[in-house]
């Protein structure tokens, strides 16, 4: 074993994040680390890289007990990490990023030529044909990711930990990254691979370790495992299907809202959209195509400069989020951390926030009522938290998402916009969020669901709007909704697939 962790334990106030976990990594293998949000993956990695101080257990590297006190020390020992958000400096050049901290010098000054040579040498064997003198930020995330890997491998060279490296990559870029990973495996590195994408896990991994609730559940050869068994291990319960077909046997009601010519210059071209009560409208498109921009205009987060939204009572005032909320709208944004949660405030306060803001500051929700509300939703949505008084920033991503859903459910909106409701959350929470969507719709709520996961859209939507280049380009209804049809509409510039009413 190259890296061997035995009996790792880490406690946080109120929770045991890692409970006596064993983890072994051989040289020349890709070892996937899987588990739901809050299963302990991040904690395990942070203990291995010295970001956290472990409370118990030991770590052996090449048979030697090691005790890294910081990520820097771990790097010196040979354990390098590359995170989902590339932790390099996009405003510096590729060469500067690669050589930062150990630039070759000449007469005491940084030698640009030496730096260039060193960078090119470091990138050799990664199959990248890039100009190392250009700014790192001018390259795609995939290239940046590979540069980060090259730097980590150069600095550490024994163990490489990839924490959700593919989260923001497209299929071609993933293939590129995997070629690099396979190359490193050939060179004898031990690679830990953390991902939510099970297909990718099966594509690249030799072995798989599953954690659940801070405990080690299983370590097996990837070849001995199939998808269903793996999901069962991760969830600890039987899932009949990954996603159920919620759409079947549902009939949307009367028209609830109608947007006419709504748009904002530079963000989203004027569009028409009708939403009926109890209907799920899906929205597909590539990142930056105008999906989120549509949601922001509909919620008043960004003011529209054309068009209007009407309901049965007339025009709806969408001049600010507060007005939109007063009109019965809700919006769970894509970026939970910056746009959703109020990290330092408690779960209770986060759930009560929209309701409180709507009532106004002079009419406080009594503390007992807030607590009842919070505890009710913690139970109903199965939010994993030690209590309602825990700061929401300490919860895992999936649970933060549920807190935001609870915030909106407490408002009982008639129209709720969910922007990437399942991004970055694990399979279990994923299925639960989809179940919640089904429940909301059953109670008569109308939803706009924006997602990059086409299967998810197919599963939940009554209609799917496809957005491309800041324009609503197609609408698919009922039986037309298949992943294939959506992909075609996103891809083909002239295959306008207008729905026949």
């Amino acid at each position, binding site marked *: 074993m190259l890296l061997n962790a035995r009996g790792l334990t880490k406690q946080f106030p109120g929770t045991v994040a890692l409970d006596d976990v064993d983890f072994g990594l051989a040289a020349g293998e890709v070892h996937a680390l899987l588990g739901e949000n809050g299963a302990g993956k991040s904690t395990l990695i942070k203990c291995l890289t010295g970001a956290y101080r472990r409370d118990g257990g030991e770590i052996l590297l090449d048979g030697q007990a090691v005790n890294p006190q910081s990520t820097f020390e771990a790097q010196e020992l040979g354990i390098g990490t590359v995170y989902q958000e590339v932790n390099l400096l996009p405003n510096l050049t590729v060469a500067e990023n690669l050589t930062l901290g150990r630039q070759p010098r000449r007469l005491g000054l940084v030698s640009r030529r030496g730096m260039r040579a060193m960078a090119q040498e470091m990138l050799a064997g990664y199959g990248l044909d890039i100009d190392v003198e250009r700014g790192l930020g001018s390259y795609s995330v995939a290239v940046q990711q590979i540069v980060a890997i090259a730097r980590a491998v150069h600095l550490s060279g024994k163990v490489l930990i990839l924490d959700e490296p593919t989260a923001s990559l497209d299929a071609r870029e993933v293939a590129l990254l995997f070629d690099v990973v396979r190359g490193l495996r050939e060179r004898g590195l031990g690679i830990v691979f953390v991902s939510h994408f099970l297909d990718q896990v099966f594509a690249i991994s030799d072995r798989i370790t599953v954690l659940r609730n801070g405990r080690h559940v299983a370590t097996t050869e990837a070849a001995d495992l199939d998808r269903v068994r793996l999901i069962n291990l991760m969830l600890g319960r039987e899932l009949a299907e990954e996603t159920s077909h919620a759409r079947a046997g549902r009939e949307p009601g009367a028209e609830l809202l109608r947007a006419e010519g709504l748009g904002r210059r530079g963000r989203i071209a004027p569009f028409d959209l009708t939403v009926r009560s109890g209907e799920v409208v899906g929205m597909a498109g590539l990142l930056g195509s105008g999906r989120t921009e549509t949601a922001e205009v509909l919620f008043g987060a960004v003011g529209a400069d054309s068009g209007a939204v009407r309901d049965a009572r007339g025009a709806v005032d969408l001049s600010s989020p*507060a007005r939109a*909320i007063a009109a019965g709208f809700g*919006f769970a944004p894509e970026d939970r951390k910056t*746009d959703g*949660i109020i*990290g*330092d*405030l408690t779960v209770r306060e986060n759930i009560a926030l929209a309701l409180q*803001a709507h009532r106004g500051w*002079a009419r406080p929700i009594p503390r007992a009522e807030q607590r009842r509300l919070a505890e009710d939703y913690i139970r109903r949505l199965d939010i994993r938290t030690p209590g309602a008084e825990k700061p929401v920033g300490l919860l895992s991503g999936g649970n933060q998402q549920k807190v935001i859903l609870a915030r909106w459910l407490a408002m009982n909106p008639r129209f709720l916009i969910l922007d990437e409701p399942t991004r970055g959350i694990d399979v279990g929470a994923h299925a639960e969020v989809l179940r919640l969507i089904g429940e909301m719709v059953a109670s008569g709520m109308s939803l706009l669901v924006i997602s990059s996961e086409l299967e998810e859209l197919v599963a939940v939507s009554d209609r799917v709007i496809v957005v491309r280049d800041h324009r609503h380009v197609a609408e698919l209804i009922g039986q037309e909704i298949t992943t294939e049809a959506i992909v075609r509409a996103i891809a083909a510039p002239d295959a306008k697939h207008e729905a026949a009413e």
Partner: protein
Amino acid sequence: MNGSGLLRRVAPQLLTLAAVLALVTLFFPSFLSVGFGNDRLVGSPIDVLKRGAPVALLAIGMTLVIATRGIDLSVGAVMAICGASAAFAVDQGWGMGVALPLALLAGLLCGLWNGFLVAVLGIQPIVATLILMVAGRGIAQLVTEGQILTFSDEGFAFLGSGVFLGLPVPAWTWVLAGLLVGLVVRRTALGLLIESVGVNLRASRLAGVNSTVLLLTVYAISGLCAAVAGLIVTGDIRGADANNAGLWLELDAILAVAIGGTSLLGGRFSILASLIGAMIIQSINTGILLAGFPPEFNLVIKAVLVLLILMLQSPRLGSLAAGLMTRRRRADEAGAAPRSVQEARR
């Protein structure tokens, strides 16, 4: 927050205050003695309560502003404007019935101006309030026409140096103002919304919080607090000094909030803790004077004491100390282990 939670929140500040008082008593043994004479309580603690009033009042507003991730550098200058306005009104013979509302109105307008720059125009708070910090003294000088505007209105002087039920009126004023603002923000949802905006403005707006009105409100409250502080210092010396009224007090107010443990990054706040912070600062000021150090040492001693206080309260130092403790305990256990083995052998 319930009683025990509140006590736990302000415990570090109370301990610090006790330590400062003990330290001063060491140098000036009769520091804590309070007597009664001439219908009033007299003694250094009473003096601290009175002299600390301006900073305490400023700290109330400053706490709310800082909780929204802002800062208000203009409060010292606003004190000068409001004091000058009131002195002007009294000087014109309009009486306190006009002077008092006029000063409060001036403070409110100053606060709303700051709030407008921050909330509507989106200027960074430190820059936005710097404008009034610089311009404010000029405005005050225009009001007083460059003179120290003295007056002999007993009602006005009562605000700064009067006695009510044995205690100085300024002491009553800051205690009541603190209670009033504290109750308003905690008994309504204002406190929650302020903290929410301070932690994450974008997310709060998307949850429907009207951040514009909220920011205008906190800067307005800060302006009003400065107005009251300005009335007190002006009444105390029976004259409006546009150059020196409230000079540098914005910095003491920020310090009081910092000692009170409210993060300058916004979010959770405690007005009570800031008020105790203001009393800590005033105890140091009064203590240094009484202890009889040469005056040229005053600022240095104050700086050293403040540095010590902030270091003791720093969470990083706390975890470092906790780390040392556990390491020592582990070492003890390691040392103890062989002994128990030997005992087992026997």
